[in-house]
């Protein structure tokens, strides 16, 4: 008994010696520095359509950066660590924390909806990790995180458009169609709906200034099964234009019920629900000429700073790889990595977070979604990208194609048609 115990102890000491030897040898292997970039997006759950092209885009980026990045004359390997937020803000914060504390990323990237960008950016701000974010209107990204316009944030930067742009785009589109200027609003009780319907910062003040009369029956819950209250309110106000920001099932329920009840507006401009072509396909023929804001299309006259591919080539590559129609987030996810590569090249590389942060602030890059440069935006940490408006039309290469019909907000993006009234 006693003997075996000694033997066990000896064995343990031996094992410890082996581990120690391994540790001594380790630094010799890890001589080349490795840049680590973390990326959080909603790959599963209700927000997953936003991240559907992530694998395709990141595959392209990995291919382009296969040989590593040349930083200060020395080559550094690049590692992209991808985490899924599961469409859950708490989970997003948790995986961001892992990337920061366990993986020690040099730069954090995050995309798609305030539910993803905000918790990740908050973690980065607290842990002093530089972060670039996109695909969320800037107001919910900035104000919902307690941003003060004069102070801004220190570690987190964002590029996208804002509510003021979507309001301008929608009203420009309605200006092309003769209506009685009576507008009905569908604003749900969520972050977007409350921001759009806000009496000071949302649609109401701009609409009344432009001479539109807004009928806003009030906030409703998402996944609404019955819009008859809204439809009867719109009918009695003789509404000819409908706007709002709703989820796809609610748009379908509303639009089918509207037709059952004989409510026929001339223009319907909706955010969020009309983003993805599959939703239009679901409406059958009834989706023709519904309109939405357009952040990116294959017809945008920009090209990638990373691969040199045009917007059209990027979209075609996705369609070829996935057999699916392009969607707007593809351009922005690609642009996010364009910014990341550009920033890392101008930084001091791995383990130099301060220089990475410095490089972000000095970014001036022409990306596939347009120029990205911080400093001239509405607040310190926000860079704005161009926004135009378009209508979904039947026919063409896919069941529905997004046709740009208004570019007063960004004349460098070509229009492909005029606004047509519905019906």
């Amino acid at each position, binding site marked *: 008994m006693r003997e075996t115990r000694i033997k066990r102890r000896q064995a343990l000491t031996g094992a410890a010696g082996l581990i120690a030897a391994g540790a001594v040898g380790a630094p010799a292997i890890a001589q080349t520095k490795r840049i680590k970039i973390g990326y959080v997006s909603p790959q599963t759950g209700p927000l997953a359509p936003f991240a559907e092209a992530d694998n395709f885009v990141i595959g392209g980026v990995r291919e382009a950066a296969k040989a590593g990045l040349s930083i200060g004359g020395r080559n550094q390997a690049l590692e992209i660590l991808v985490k899924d937020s599961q469409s859950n803000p708490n989970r997003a914060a948790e995986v961001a924390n892992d990337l920061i504390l366990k993986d020690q990323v040099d730069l954090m990237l995050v995309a798609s909806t305030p539910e993803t960008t905000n918790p990740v950016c908050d973690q980065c701000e607290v842990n002093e990790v530089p972060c670039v974010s996109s695909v969320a209107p800037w107001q919910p990204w900035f104000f919902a995180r307690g941003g003060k316009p004069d102070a801004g944030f220190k570690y987190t930067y964002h590029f996208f458009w804002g509510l003021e742009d979507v309001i301008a785009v929608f009203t420009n589109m309605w200006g092309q169609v003769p209506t009685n200027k009576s507008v009905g609003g569908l604003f749900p009780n969520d972050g977007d709906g409350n921001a759009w319907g806000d009496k000071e910062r949302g649609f109401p003040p701009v609409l009344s200034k432009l001479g539109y009369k807004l009928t806003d029956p009030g906030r409703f819950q998402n996944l609404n099964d019955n819009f008859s209250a809204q439809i009867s309110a719109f009918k009695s106000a003789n509404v000819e234009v409908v706007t709002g920001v709703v989820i796809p*099932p609610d748009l379908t329920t509303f639009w089918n019920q509207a037709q059952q009840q004989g409510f026929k507006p001339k223009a319907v401009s909706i955010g969020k629900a009309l983003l993805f072509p599959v939703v239009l396909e679901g409406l059958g023929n009834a989706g023709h000429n519904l309109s939405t804001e357009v952040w990116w299309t294959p017809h945008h006259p920009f090209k990638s700073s990373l691969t040199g591919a045009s917007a059209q080539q990027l979209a075609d590559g996705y369609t070829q790889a996935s057999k699916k129609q392009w969607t707007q987030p593809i351009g922005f996810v690609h642009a996010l990595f364009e910014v990341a590569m550009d920033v890392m090249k101008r930084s001091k590389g791995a383990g130099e977070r301060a220089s990475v942060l410095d490089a972000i602030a000095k970014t001036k890059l022409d990306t596939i979604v347009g120029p990205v440069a911080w400093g001239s935006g509405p607040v310190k940490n926000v860079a704005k990208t161009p926004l135009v408006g378009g209508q979904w039309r039947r026919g063409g290469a896919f069941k529905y194609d997004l046709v740009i019909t208004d570019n007063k907000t960004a004349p460098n993006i070509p229009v492909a048609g005029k606004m047509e009234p519905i019906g």
Partner: protein
Amino acid sequence: MTAALDTVLQGTLLGGLYALFAAGLSLIFGIMRLVNIAHGDLIVLAAYVALVAVQASGIGPIESLVIVVPVMFAVGYGLQRGLLNSTLDRGILPPLLVTFGLSIIIQNALLEGFSADSRKLQAGALEIASLRLGPDLAVGWFPLLIFLTAVAVIAGLQVLLYRTRVGRAFRAVSDDPEAARLYGVDNRHLFALAMALALAVVSIAAVFLAVRTNFDPAVGPARLLFAFEAVIIGGLGSLWGTLAGGVILGVAQSVGAKIDPAWQLLAGHVAFLLVLVLRPRGLFPRAVD
């Protein structure tokens, strides 16, 4: 006046959909006291089965029921026989946990197989056709069809339970499983049949839901809540009660929305709460549990 009538009418028709969601839940709870957390996800699963059937054969969504109902019937039988039967008789927790796990598995398997895209089935002109009842009053043919189907399904289940041999056996195992076994009733087979029947009803609800609006792999749990409320309002185990529960819920929501859209869901929940306070066992509870 027309506006008030419209509100009640639209709410009633919506109640038909809720009742269809709830009928399967009510049936299996009534027969085997199983609370199926995965019910909403099974609705979504059936919707995807319909989607595959429609895409593969080119038939319309309503016609696809010919395929979806037998498929889900078989799924239900297998699910109960192979998995859920072994969770019964061990207290209230194991079935809850197993169906909860099932809910997560179904969601993720659908996400893997069909991506997160929002899908929908198309019924063409039927979706938007309506019946004019007056200058300002119109009823969609499709909501009306859903409501009438709900009534027919519940009447059918009622006949099955109270007028047939297998229905008598269902009621026997529900009342006293041990005694039923003594009389030669095979509980495992009957429970599996009940689940199969419930999923056949679920298929009908699923096809209607999928024509009515978009669905995606994650939407199931949200559909479960109203089904539960309809069952509880109507009284556990009572099928006509479930229909009444669905209609009460639909009308309460519709009236709430008329006052202010923010009150739509709240009004439904308040109605649910009122019933619980005034009649804790629901409106039409079946016998003594």
